[in-house]
């Protein structure tokens, strides 16, 4: 039987100002009809470039140097622009990473679905609308007829991704490319999208190329998994076998980096003295206007205790108010309530003196935006030293503390990789010799292997300095490896708070159980 999609010995270069950059080399993959091939790789491995090459939408500086791309019996590379429009959508569909930018904000959902259906299924407007309602109902959207009349900003991210998936499946293509379809969504929404994908695929028998950086998730969606590194496929195996019998060293290192809740990385027990006690923290964004009421608070009377040297995990889906807690504790957001710290009580950002500012440090989620692009690394690190009293000669020691060479002091942030930038941000926080470091989703944008290194570093720094962590994350498996206590938030409220030993017990909050079900431990 002919494969639905064949990639044979494919090679791709990008021409840049600094020369030719190889992106893909000797990539050979085949997807049988009805099969799902998972493509796993870290950022920069060329996995998205492969998807764009298949969609024939490469940037102008891309050069295909070898190989062929076959969709069934069609040679994709030889198609003219006009022939391509007959293939895209109809024969090969695509689901994008970020649903918020994949839909046109100025058109209704209905316009966008029916346009695709009318074009690719040769339907008239009325039949297309009827089919659109059927399709949206099929992806478990409530009241599909109403959704058709809405604009993209009026529905949630998960609903948008459902609309895109419904459109892709509705055109009945032979192959659908999924480019990290759940990365931009929170855990529970992502888990539901994966369930939906599994069901639709069983019903339609479509072949798919499923691209992701998440090896653990692959075992749930793919039949076969290919691991790609630096543009080369290093290993291909059945999804059920890749975890239990990895062949290549790189695959093994990827598997080792996947967080497993049963493998604890922290073994000590924190002290009993409370370092920071937050009571009734309510964060309020925006004031009441002349004609409108104030928006509801982002968090509702949240109480959190952090003991000296303790690692407290805060988990919850996006919009649950976990980052608002971080902003309140660092004085970045207006809040009501009280924070007791070091014998004093604070009622607002104005009460936070230099002592509190030094003792409580924050590391942000995006390493790209947390370092000033116009300051050298040395200047970035010397700033807290100047501010809180310290010798700027300590900069090399700070860099060494986060396992970076001292020569990095003269570099600019854009010359560093994402993981290195995050190390600099951690070094900046520790330059103040803090007693509490708030980590706001600091591992979320990083690859698994880099994430594991950052976690190792944080634990080593904690052993050195005895700092406590408030670790905000949506990755339940990761936080169960390191936290002493986990706090679960939902809709701005604290729904569950328990020590790690009591986390797996039966009396957990139903929402906690739902979270745990959405992030199952990797098999094997």
């Amino acid at each position: 039987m002919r494969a639905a999609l064949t990639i044979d010995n494919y090679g791709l270069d990008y021409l840049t100002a600094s020369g030719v950059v190889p992106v893909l080399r000797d990539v050979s993959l085949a997807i049988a009809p009805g099969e799902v091939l998972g493509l796993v790789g870290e950022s920069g491995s060329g996995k998205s470039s492969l998807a764009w090459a298949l969609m024939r939408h490469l940037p102008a500086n891309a050069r295909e140097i070898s190989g062929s791309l076959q969709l069934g019996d069609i040679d994709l590379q030889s198609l003219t622009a006009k022939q391509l429009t007959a293939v895209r959508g109809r024969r090969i569909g695509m689901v994008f990473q970020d649903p918020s930018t994949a839909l046109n904000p100025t058109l209704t959902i209905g316009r966008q679905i029916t346009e695709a259906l009318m074009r690719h299924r040769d339907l008239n407007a009325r039949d297309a609308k009827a089919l659109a309602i059927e399709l949206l109902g099929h992806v478990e959207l409530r009241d599909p007829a109403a959704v058709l009349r809405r604009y993209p900003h009026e529905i949630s991210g998960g609903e948008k991704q459902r609309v895109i998936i419904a459109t892709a499946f509705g055109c009945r293509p032979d192959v659908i490319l999924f480019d990290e379809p759940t990365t931009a969504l929170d855990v529970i929404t992502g888990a539901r999208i994966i369930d939906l994908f599994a069901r639709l695929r069983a019903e339609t028998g479509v072949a798919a190329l499923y691209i992701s950086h998440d090896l653990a998730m692959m075992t749930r969606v793919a039949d076969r998994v290919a691991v790609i590194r630096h543009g080369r496929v290093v290993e291909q195996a059945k999804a059920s076998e890749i975890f239990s019998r990895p062949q290549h060293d790189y695959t093994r290192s990827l598997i080792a980096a996947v967080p497993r809740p049963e493998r604890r990385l922290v073994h000590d027990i924190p002290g009993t003295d409370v370092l920071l006690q937050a009571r009734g923290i309510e964060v309020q964004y925006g004031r009441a206007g002349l004609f409108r009421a104030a928006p509801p608070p982002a968090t509702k009377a949240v109480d959190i205790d952090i003991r000296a040297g303790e690692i407290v995990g805060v988990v919850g889906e996006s919009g649950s108010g976990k980052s608002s807690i971080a902003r309140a504790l660092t004085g970045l957001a207006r809040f009501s309530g009280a924070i007791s710290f070091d014998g004093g009580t604070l009622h607002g950002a104005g009460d936070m003196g230099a002592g509190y500012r030094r003792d409580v440090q924050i590391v942000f989620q995006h390493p790209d935006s947390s370092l000033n692009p116009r300051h050298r690394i040395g200047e970035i690190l010397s700033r807290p030293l100047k501010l809180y009293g310290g010798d700027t000669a300590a900069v090399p020691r700070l860099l060494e503390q986060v396992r970076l060479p001292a020569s990095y002091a003269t570099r600019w942030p854009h010359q560093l990789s994402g993981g290195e930038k995050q190390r600099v941000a951690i070094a900046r926080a520790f330059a103040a010799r803090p007693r509490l470091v708030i980590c706001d989703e600091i591992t979320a944008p990083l690859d698994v292997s880099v994430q594991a290194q950052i976690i190792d570093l944080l634990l080593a720094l904690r052993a050195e300095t005895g700092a406590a962590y408030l670790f905000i994350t949506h990755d339940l498996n990761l936080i169960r490896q390191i936290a002493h206590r986990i706090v679960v938030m939902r809709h701005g409220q604290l729904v569950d708070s328990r020590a790690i030993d009591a986390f797996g017990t039966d009396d957990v909050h139903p929402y906690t159980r739902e979270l745990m079900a959405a992030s199952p431990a990797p098999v094997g």
Partner: protein
Amino acid sequence: MTELLQRMIRKPQGVIGLTLLVALAILCLLGPWLAPYGPEKMDFLGRFRAPGWQNWLGADQFGRDVLSRLLSGARATVPMALAATLAGSAIGAVIGIGSAYLGGKSDEAIMRTNDAVMAIPGLLMALLLVSTLGNGAGNAVVAIALAFAPGMARVTRSVALAVRNQDYVKAAVARGEAAAHVIFREMLPNVMGPIIIEATIRVSFAVMLFATLSFLGLGAQPPASEWGLMVADARQYMHRAPWILIAPSAAIALSAIAFNLVGDALRDALNPRDDR
């Protein structure tokens, strides 16, 4: 810096703009020495002499050499326009970044006041200020700077608002840095790109505004050889000796074009996405 220059001269507009700008700089520095005659040297036999070998660009109603007057007048025109733009941009940038940093009600108050000032046309504003402060080149510079500030404040604020939300600014605020440090050290370097581009384009407006003020008799005073004033003086002899009018007008237009082209080239060169 050299990299920036290389990126600017990749397009012909950048090359032309930079060449014109260098020529203008040479005129400002060496103009009086390059001039064949003194700017105020009169020649009563040569009144309204057409362009020729004696006076390359002709002579005016007093027989003064137009080319010499242009060359020595460059100093009176271009540096003034630059000074006015620099002062206006600096004032506007500080207002814009400060407003974005403060946010909330202070931001509203500052920007609404700014909008009110902006509602007055630039020339009218400059006229108002000069008539209050008195005639003269120095006052014209102040007037143009103040007329430019609100526009610059708007441009800067829109960029600064995006920078304000960056994590490095939040980190500085969380660290407990003083407002001045956050505004000048963290935010200002990151909004410089758009400010520089806007300023280069505004220099050309300043040249013209300055010429207009002089033309109306409110800027430089006779017998100065400021370009706008030269146009104003030449107006009544327009039909008899058009070259007296055309030469300074062309000089004003060319310098305006030079700054505009350089501004455009800078905008493209500073855009990091333009990497090919």
